C-alpha cells in the first residue's frame, strides 16, 4: 500500500469519530447521566418522561439502565449524576455514607407473587408475603429468583430473611440471573412461583401461564426515590443537571403524568405518584 494512504484513511476515520461526538464534548454541562434500573426502563415510563424533560430544559439525558446495585455503585464513583432507584435499604446506606445530596420520594408500585394456577403451595389470596414464602418453602414448590442484585431481587431476599428461611442451594429454588421479563417466562414455562413487579407482569400477562397469587402486602411496596449524587465527592458530577431532573420528576405536572401512565395500554395504573408524601405513610 502507498505509505501515506493507510495513515490518511485512519486520520479521516478518527476525525469522523471525534466529529461525531464533538457536540457532546463541547456541551458537557448539557449532559446528564441518569443511572436507573432495568425494570424502570422496561416499564416504558422513562420513554415518556425523558423526552419531556429534555424538551423542557435542553439537557441531554443518558439513561443507563443497570441493576440497582450497579446504579448505586456508579453513584458512588461519580460516574452518574442522578439516580432513580428502588432499593430503600441500600439507598439509606448510600446517603449515610455521604454519596448523595438529595433523596426525594418519587413514586411507588408494588410487587406481586405470581404462580401457576394449580397453586401447589396453596398461597392464593394470602395477605402476607412472608407467610406465602413460608408455605412455598414448606411445600418445596418451584420458585424462580432473579438472583441478579436488582431491586426486585433485593426485595425478594428481604422477604426470605423476614421469613427466617435460607432458600439458596435448595433444589426448588432456582436463580435465573435474568431480567424480570425473562424470569417470568421461565417461571411460566416451568410452572413455578416468582416475585415480580406489577408493571412487567401486566405487560406480559397475555403470554404467561401465571396468575397473581398474593398482593397488597405493605411489604410488597416498591418505592422509588430520585437521588442527586454529591458533587463534593466527585467534582465532575453535573449537580445542576441532577437538581433539575430531581425537581422535574417531583413536580406536580410530571407526577400527574406518572399517575396516568399505563392506564390506556394495560388498563391499570403502573405507578403511584408520591412526591408529596412521606415514605412511612405509604401503603396505609
Amino acid at each position, binding site marked *: *500500500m*502507498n*505509505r501515506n494512504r*493507510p495513515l490518511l*484513511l*485512519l486520520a479521516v*476515520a*478518527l476525525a*469522523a*469519530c*471525534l466529529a*461525531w*461526538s464533538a457536540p*457532546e*464534548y463541547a456541551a*458537557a454541562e448539557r*449532559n446528564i*447521566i441518569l443511572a436507573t434500573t*432495568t425494570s424502570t*426502563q*422496561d416499564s416504558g415510563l422513562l*420513554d415518556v418522561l*425523558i423526552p419531556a424533560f429534555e424538551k423542557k430544559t435542553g439537557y441531554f439525558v*443518558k*439513561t*443507563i*439502565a443497570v441493576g440497582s446495585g450497579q446504579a448505586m455503585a456508579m453513584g458512588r*464513583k*461519580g*460516574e452518574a449524576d442522578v439516580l432513580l432507584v428502588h432499593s430503600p435499604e441500600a439507598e439509606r446506606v448510600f446517603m449515610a455514607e455521604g454519596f448523595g445530596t438529595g433523596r426525594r420520594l418519587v413514586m411507588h408500585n408494588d410487587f406481586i407473587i405470581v404462580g401457576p394456577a394449580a397453586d401447589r403451595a396453596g398461597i392464593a389470596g394470602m395477605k402476607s408475603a412472608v407467610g406465602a414464602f413460608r408455605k412455598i418453602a414448606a411445600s418445596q414448590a418451584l420458585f424462580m429468583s432473579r438472583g441478579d442484585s436488582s431491586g426486585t431481587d433485593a426485595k425478594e431476599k428481604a422477604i426470605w430473611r423476614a421469613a427466617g428461611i435460607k432458600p439458596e442451594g435448595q433444589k426448588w429454588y432456582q436463580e435465573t440471573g*435474568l*431480567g*424480570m*421479563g*425473562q424470569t*417470568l*417466562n421461565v417461571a411460566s414455562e416451568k410452572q413455578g412461583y416468582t416475585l415480580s413487579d406489577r408493571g*412487567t407482569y401486566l*405487560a*406480559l400477562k397475555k*403470554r404467561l401461564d401465571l396468575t397473581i397469587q398474593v398482593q397488597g402486602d405493605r411489604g410488597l411496596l416498591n418505592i422509588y426515590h430520585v437521588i442527586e449524587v454529591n458533587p463534593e465527592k*466527585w467534582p*465532575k*458530577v453535573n449537580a445542576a443537571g441532577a437538581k433539575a431532573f430531581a425537581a422535574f420528576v417531583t413536580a406536580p405536572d410530571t407526577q400527574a403524568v406518572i399517575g396516568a401512565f399505563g392506564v390506556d395500554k394495560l388498563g391499570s395504573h403502573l405507578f403511584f405518584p408520591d412526591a408529596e408524601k412521606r415514605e412511612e405513610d405509604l401503603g396505609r
Partner: protein
Amino acid sequence: MELILDGLRKAFWLLVTMDPEVFGITLLSLKVSGLATLISTVVGISLGALVALARFPGKRIVVGLVNTGMGLPPVVVGLFVSILLWRSGPLGFLGMLYTPAAMVVAQAVIATPIVMGISIAALQQLPQKLTLQVLALGATKPQLARILTKEARLPLLAAVMAGFGGVISEVGASIMVGGNIKGYSRVLTTATVMETGRGNFETAIALGVILLLLAYAVNLVLTHIQQRERPR
C-alpha cells in the same frame, strides 16, 4: 417454532413499514460497526504487513499475542475501555463514555486483532521466494508491501469480513461503553438483549433477523468485491 415465525413476521412488518426506531437502530449499527471495521482494516492490515514481512527477535511471541487477541472476549474489551473512559479514568476528560464514538473505539479494539491476525497468516502463506522476486524486480519496501498485499487480497478481504462479523454481532462491549441509550447509542444487538430481557421475544427475534439481513447484505457486497477481483 411458532415464536420464530412470529418473529419473522414481525421483522418483515418492521422492514416494510420502515419503522423509524428500528430504522434508526439499524443505521446506527451499520455506522458504528462500519467505522470500526474501517479503522481496524487500516490498522490491522498495515501492522499485519509489518509483522509478517519484517524479521525481528520475538516475532513468534508477537504473532502469538495477536492470535490470542483474536479471541479477546468483547466484554473484557468493553470493561477496559469503560474504565479508561470513566470520568475518574485517564481519558475521562474526553467525556466519551456512553456515546457511539466510544462504541466505535471498543469495536475497533475488538476487530483489529482479528484483521491483523488473519492478515499475517494471509501474507505468510505467500510463497517465500515471491518476496525475493519482487525485490529482484527492483521494488522499494513500500512497493513490496503494496504488491504482496495485492497478491494476498483474497484472504485479506476475508480478514475484513471476519473483522466486520466480529463487531456487528458484538453486544457486551457495546452495552458497557454505549449505554444502550434510546435513539442515541442503541444498536441492533443491544436492543435485542433489552427486548429479550423484557420478555418481548417476538421483537427480539425480529431484531435478530434484521441483524442477520444487515450482516448478509454487507458480506454480499464484500464477497462480490473479493470474487470479482479474480481475472478470468
